[in-house]
């Protein structure tokens, strides 16, 4: 069992902090380095898309289900995508069962906002008939092991799920009945832009990215920035840490730079699944 505890000893804290001051991390990374991502897609046969993503010790399995329903009155020609995250008690002794708590809602919301404001999902292509029938996508994330920084891991897992998706294509026939063409809408139909969310932790005056579990538990707070190719789409500061204006400017710049690197390295479009 990995040693997971809510309270971290003063000695461990000092050790981590002193090393951070020298630009060193306990797992050997430098301050602006991600742990390794491992991505597997289409792991769940029952789902219309799925991804199993690990970032260091954090592991999230997400899946996509769909329904056909009525659009919202203010967007009659747009499909809907809702996100949910569940911190399974299986993933960590720190998690408890029960209805979604603040932490899991924040996880889903931060990723959702990043994706929503980046124009990531082509909602207009998810419309079958205006005012009548649109696709409603349910993107659900399940945390299988908690090793810090679930937001970044979840963000990549959502994108990989959407890209590997294969949703049956429906059309209305002449009798106004919904029929299935036997074809599938794939990632190219659903996804437009890829927003990456990048999280930075802050302990005292030191800022670093992708906190691992111990660093996350020690952190005063964190800031998550979602970026597209060259734009910022959402920011969430959480925890009790405070950030100066200069720090925020620096982090925004850093996020775009890291986002570009990540986009290249992960090359998520390779997970596109072509189904007849």
């Amino acid at each position, binding site marked *: 069992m990995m040693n997971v505890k809510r309270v971290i000893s003063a000695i461990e804290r000092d050790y981590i902090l002193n090393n951070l001051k020298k630009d060193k991390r306990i797992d050997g990374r430098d301050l602006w380095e991600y742990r390794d991502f491992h991505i597997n897609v289409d792991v*769940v046969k*029952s789902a219309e898309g799925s991804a199993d993503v690990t970032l260091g010790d954090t592991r999230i399995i997400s*899946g996509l289900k769909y329904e056909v329903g009525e659009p919202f009155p203010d967007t009659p020609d747009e499909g809907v995508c809702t996100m949910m995250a569940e911190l399974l*008690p299986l993933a960590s002794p720190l998690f408890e069962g029960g209805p979604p708590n603040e932490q899991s809602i924040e996880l889903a919301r931060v990723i959702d906002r990043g994706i929503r404001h980046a124009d990531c999902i082509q909602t207009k292509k998810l419309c079958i008939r205006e005012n009548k029938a649109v696709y409603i996508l349910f993107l659900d994330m399940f945390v299988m092991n908690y090793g810090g920084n679930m937001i970044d891991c979840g963000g990549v897992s959502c994108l990989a799920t959407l890209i590997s998706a294969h949703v049956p294509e429906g059309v209305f026939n002449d009798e106004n009945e*919904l029929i299935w063409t036997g074809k599938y809408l794939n990632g190219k139909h659903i996804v437009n832009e890829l927003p990456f969310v990048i999280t930075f932790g802050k302990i005292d005056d030191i800022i670093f990215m992708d906190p691992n579990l111990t660093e996350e538990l020690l952190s005063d707070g964190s800031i998550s920035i979602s970026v597209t190719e060259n734009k910022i789409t959402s920011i969430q500061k959480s925890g009790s840490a405070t950030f100066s204006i200069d720090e925020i400017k620096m982090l925004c710049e850093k996020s775009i730079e890291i986002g570009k690197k990540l986009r290249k390295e992960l090359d998520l479009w390779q997970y596109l699944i072509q189904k007849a």
Partner: protein
Amino acid sequence: MPLIIKDEYPKKLFREDGKRLDGRDKHELRPIKMEVGVIKNADGSAYLEWGNNKIFAAVYGPRDVHPHHLAKSDRGILRIFYRMATYSVFERKRPAPGRREKEISMVISDCLEPVLFLELYPGTSFEVFIEVIDADGGTRCAGTTVAALALADAGIPMRSLVTSVALGKIDGEIVVDLSGIEDKAGQADLPCAITWFNDQLSLLQFDGDMTLEEMNKCLDLAPDILKRIYEMQLNALKEKYLKIREEVNKSEEIATEGGEQ
């Protein structure tokens, strides 16, 4: 408007060559893959792929009971939480645990309790979380099997392992290990589990219709089938330690090589 593609069942569950729809013989199991120690944070964990079923189990304990009033002063308690992921089934499952999940949790808990020495752990609880990521029939049996494996991986004293499988009747024939379609379109489903320390059944449910002879045939067939899965469980547990031994041997080799230079 709910989901529209219909969940259609085939009329016949046997192909013309006498095999089942997925190409299996009547007494053939689906491919099974097991692994232990897959969730780092847990005290013990296991992963099982059984046909299209994909299930994780994690054990935490002995630990404090929460809520406290559930604690028993003379013995520990075993709590099983069987859950299905929303995307694990054809029609999206609602996120909150339903009646079915609660019942299965209870059945599995009753099934596993006899093998544990709970009287040695007063005031504490063992919590087993079973998470079904992908479901295709027989998840309660697979869940029981993987939960027993996770308990063993956690090093919790056990009288023996527990193994579970479903038998059933499709198109009038007795078969083992029903798949999702066979479960829904078949005539009978008999999940059972065996506790190996006394060779007795500790989980038994039945739905459908069977004659007395058919029931006897099923029950006679069960031990052999269960034995096959039991061997796989033992191998999965051994595999972890073989890997550790390999690593130790390797590092020792490196150490001695370094010494010679």
